């Protein structure tokens, strides 16, 4: 990546104008923090509304080339193309519903985590909206396009703007501009008119807070960003706080807490293995996953409270009661909400239950740590009443 010019998003100029400190992430030049700094940005998001540029991610649409005109049949046909490479019940998605799922390799390791959605509109059946991670998107898109064969085409939408608005005041901030969003519940999406075009708004995010992700045409992205920022309840939030927010929410970050050797069960993402797919045993690595669910598990993702000393960062060794190394930290840092260090990592199942006393090695010294239930900070998703 180093010899290539960094890619920009439709909002890069906006970040510079706001005085952001920029960094490389996933091949893009992205804001790591603004003038407020990570701590204040983090806490602002938990109390008000944070605005995040996540345009570096990989939104795309998988479209059937030939529609039958029967919405149900067309949805099933496009889902049948994606299902062999993920573990979700894509066919079972209702109109306007989003699901978190995992792209898996032949041995059941996680190639990426992603969001797949069935659009709501009559004009968008036989279409799936798929959003993958920035760092993995080229490989993911190739994998999905190969699965689609000649039957569907994968249309990239990663030239557009993708803006996340997260926090308890997110609904008020977004509904002031796009009133339709007030009706959305967690993990649903709609299309709405904006600036002479259409935006796709989903009630989702990666902070543990209520909020939205808005996919907007590049030419309208800056206008929407600036309009959102006019609301004094909203402030821009960089990738630094995005990372500490998702860590507190116990959400894994691909390339850190997830990789191609780790299975969904090891990652404690069993909820992403849909019941239909589990019973049919028809997803990649199904035999492994089912064996692991049956108890054949050697490691599991855990949350750790570091009870003394410095934050334990990615790569720090996790040690058991006898001092032997039992795993490693995959994400770790300081929790602004708790005012204490927290971490996620992998430990053997017998040491992975809340209350288990472990240690982490930071700069050669053992510090006491304890397994705690995830998330560290409760989620505040707006589910249907």
């Amino acid at each position, binding site marked *: 990546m180093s010899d290539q010019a960094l890619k920009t998003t439709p909002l890069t100029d906006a970040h510079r104008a706001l005085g952001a400190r920029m960094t490389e992430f996933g091949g893009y030049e992205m804001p790591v923090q603004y003038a407020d700094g990570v701590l204040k940005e983090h806490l602002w998001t938990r109390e008000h509304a944070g605005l995040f540029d996540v345009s570096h991610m990989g939104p795309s649409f998988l479209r059937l080339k030939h529609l039958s005109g029967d919405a149900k049949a067309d949805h099933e046909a496009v889902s049948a193309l994606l299902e062999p490479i993920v573990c979700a019940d894509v066919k079972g998605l209702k109109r306007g519903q989003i699901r978190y799922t995992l792209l898996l390799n032949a041995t059941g390791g996680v190639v990426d985590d992603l969001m797949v959605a069935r659009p709501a509109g009559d004009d968008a059946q036989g279409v799936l909206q798929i959003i993958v991670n920035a760092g993995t998107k080229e490989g993911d898109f190739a994998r999905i396009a190969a699965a689609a064969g000649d039957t569907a085409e994968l249309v990239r939408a990663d030239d557009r703007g993708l803006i996340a608005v997260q926090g308890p005041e997110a609904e008020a901030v977004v509904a002031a501009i796009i009133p339709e969003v007030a009706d959305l519940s967690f993990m649903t999406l709609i299309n709405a008119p904006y600036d002479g075009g259409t935006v796709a708004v989903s009630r989702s995010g990666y902070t543990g807070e209520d909020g939205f992700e808005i996919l907007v045409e590049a030419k309208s992205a800056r206008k929407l960003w600036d309009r959102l920022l006019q609301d004094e309840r909203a402030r821009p939030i960089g990738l630094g706080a995005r990372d500490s927010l998702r860590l507190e929410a116990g959400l894994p970050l691909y390339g850190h807490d997830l990789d191609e050797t780790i299975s969904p069960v090891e990652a404690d993402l069993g909820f992403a293995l849909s019941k239909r797919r589990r019973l049919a045993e028809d997803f990649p690595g199904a035999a492994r996953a089912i064996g692991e669910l049956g108890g054949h598990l050697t490691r599991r993702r855990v949350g750790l409270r570091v009870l003394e000393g410095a934050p334990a960062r990615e790569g720090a060794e996790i040690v058991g009661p006898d001092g032997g190394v039992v795993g490693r930290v995959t994400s770790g840092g*300081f929790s602004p909400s708790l005012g204490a260090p927290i971490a996620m990592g992998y430990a053997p199942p017998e040491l992975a239950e809340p209350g288990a006393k472990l240690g982490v090695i930071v700069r050669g010294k053992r510090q006491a740590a304890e397994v705690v239930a995830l998330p560290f900070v409760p989620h505040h998703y707006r589910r249907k009443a």
Partner: protein
Amino acid sequence: MRFTKDHEWVEESGGVAAIGVTAYAAEQLGDVVFVELPEVGKTVKAGDPLAVVESVKAASDVYAPISGEVVEVNGDLPNAPETVNSMPEKDGWFAKLKLSNPAELDGLMDRAAYETFLSTL
């Protein structure tokens, strides 16, 4: 006060020097949430790691700008690490060293030279 290219400062008085990080460094680090101080009695050479500061995002070493023995550490700092941000060149000091080679001070920048150096970054 004298300065290093790693953005530490040294203030010497009677053969003992207080050491901290500059306002520029504090700004670059962001909100400091944890500091690790050396043990009193530890001997360091110029350029050795002396302390660690951690922001929400990352850990950074603070290097000893000069050689000597740690004779005092700032005991208020572990409970108030934000002092590194609010008063980096005063109450945010990390440790005091008894200099083993005071001539090393001559190799460090004065404020004017440090500010010139900052303008090149």
